[in-house]
């Protein structure tokens, strides 16, 4: 038995509906297919996830959307090198415009032909940045430094210099980073301490072998480092960003030190990828470098703004060392040697 809703019973209305549906589908398809419409409306940003993305949404993405009307689509990666692998895999059809990353992956991306060169003339806020941080491969976003965080009860003598990490009292108490963590910044630090440079890692590798007896575990990420410390698996987090320390500062159990003689300092940055929304990408980067966005993001993320017009967050004042203590990593040299460092570290250092 058929009802009036079945096809053969109502052929004309069904045909009309099909025609109308086809027209709507064509119109929709035309709208979606129009490249100019897409380019004007959005920018795709590839960024860190977690709280970083929350801060980014609140301090940069939402105000940017409100001011420009350009929609921001955020895509997330786990770590910058994994992000680079993802970008490389879609090299011939990149659907990402801006990459919030670190300098070394940005340099490697440029070598792979994944990014477009940036210039200060395209970014009005670049005039407020140090010239060394406006490069064709990337433009600096914010500055941060690494220090040591320790459990006050487990390390009653405290830590004041990097050399204190070698103390026999700290045997089996240190959390050390892997070579890949922070794109080799700890390897660079060890080299500096041993009198080496980014170009020659031998002194650093000789030095780290005297440190490993004090290691309880190696960490791959900021989160893992914090978890090791808070769960009591390690007593000393040997290489922590000050921003990661602030959430645990309230407990009063831990102390952050920017050890003598210097603290490794670096930036995170933006790279302009060969995506489909070049102009919107530039607008987004420029907005993120503006005074308001820099101050808001620095306050939430506990980092230092690099725009000279923007004030550093009050929460960091207590921990930030004098300007003379900051030592900047030669990112270009580090990028050239990172692969070798990781392989050598895995063979010589992370062994039991």
């Amino acid at each position, binding site marked *: 038995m058929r009802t009036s809703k079945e096809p053969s019973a109502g052929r004309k209305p069904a045909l009309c509906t099909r025609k109308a549906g086809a027209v709507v589908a064509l119109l929709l398809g035309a709208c979606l297919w129009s490249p100019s419409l897409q380019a004007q409306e959005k920018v795709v940003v590839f960024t860190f996830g977690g709280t970083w993305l929350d801060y980014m949404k609140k301090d940069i993405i939402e105000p940017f959307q409100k001011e420009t009307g350009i929609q921001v689509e955020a895509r997330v990666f786990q770590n910058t090198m994994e992000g680079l692998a993802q970008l490389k895999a879609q090299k011939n059809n990149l659907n990402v415009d801006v990459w919030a990353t670190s300098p070394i992956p940005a340099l490697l991306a440029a070598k792979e032909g994944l990014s477009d060169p940036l210039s200060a003339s395209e970014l009005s806020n670049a005039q407020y940045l140090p010239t060394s941080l406006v490069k064709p491969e990337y433009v600096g976003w914010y500055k941060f430094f690494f220090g040591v965080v320790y459990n006050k009860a487990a390390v009653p003598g405290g830590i004041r210099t990097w050399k204190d990490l070698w103390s026999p009292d700290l045997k089996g108490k240190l959390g050390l980073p*892997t070579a890949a963590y922070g794109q080799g910044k700890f390897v660079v630090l060890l080299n500096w301490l041993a009198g080496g440079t980014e170009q020659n890692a031998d002194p650093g590798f000789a030095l780290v072998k005297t440190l490993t007896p004090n290691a*309880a575990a*190696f960490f791959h990420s900021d989160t893992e480092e914090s978890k090791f410390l808070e*769960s009591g*698996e390690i007593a000393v987090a040997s290489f922590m960003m000050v921003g990661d320390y602030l959430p645990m500062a309230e407990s009063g159990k831990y102390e952050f030190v920017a050890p003598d003689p210097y603290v490794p300092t670096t930036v995170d940055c933006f790279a302009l990828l060969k995506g489909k929304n070049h102009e919107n990408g530039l607008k987004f980067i420029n907005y993120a470098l503006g005074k308001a966005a820099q101050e808001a993001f620095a306050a939430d993320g506990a980092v230092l703004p690099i725009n000279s017009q923007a004030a550093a967050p009050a929460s960091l004042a207590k921990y930030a060392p004098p300007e003379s203590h900051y030592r900047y990593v030669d990112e270009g040299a580090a990028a050239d040697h990172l*692969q070798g460092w990781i392989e050598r570290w895995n063979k010589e250092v992370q*062994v*039991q």
Partner: protein
Amino acid sequence: MTASLTVPFTRVSPRLIPYLLSIPALGLLSILAIALASLFAASFRGDSGALGVDQYRNIIGDPTYRGYFLKSIKIAAYACVGSIIFGCPIAYYMEFTSRSRRRLILMFIVLLLFSDYVMRVYSLILMIGNNGIINRALLWLGLVHEPVHIIYSELGVVIGLILGNGPFMILSVSSILGRIDPHLGQAASLLGAGKWAVFFRILLPLSAPGIVGGSIIVLLLSLNAYLTPELLGGGFVRMIASFVYDEAISSWNLPLASAAAAILLVIACIIVVTINGFADWLGRRIGIIPVKR
């Protein structure tokens, strides 16, 4: 309703229907085959870009790289033996306990399998970590003066793998035990066999296919483990999956990573073939598989 379901196939020969239905599976298999082929192809790219077996030579000639493979095989073997030791008694208990208890244990195992793996591993850190419940209890009781080093070592990784993969052993053995005729044990008892004789001469041989199946699953999962050694190895226990990840992602050395992955695949195939061969031989020897004529 039935008529509308058969409409798409009315003009197709019934003999073609199975082939048409297998198209999605063939598509998936093709993708897998292409992926594997590209993996093998990448592994033959040398450092200079020329084709050759340099990457395989690098791995085989380097004691550190060889060590990753040997360590992975050793840890996977420990995890497999551990899963048999802990898993089989649970499976046997499930078989011979009441239906309600069996359901309860099964529910627990399924929950364990479906719970988040990372959380399971972290819960283990809270249990056996340096500052975990066990160590705190030992310190509080004065039995030790400093925490016993359980995790961030091979032992920690093996414990994690048993916890993570052991349920597969239990389910595999349990499914075979469910198919054994309970009258066999009763008959043996009536003929004078003791409990141990019934277990060793009837139940164990008949449940061997389940143990073999479970062993293959646990071995392969443990051999490929990435998360467990990363979380419970504390950076000291590097298994082959960590090496492949580091080479592919951090060092960006895809040819070396591909060669390592290809070797791992070959090792996995050898393990499966060897275990199956051994199981067949054992089955024929103890009489649960007919001897080939």
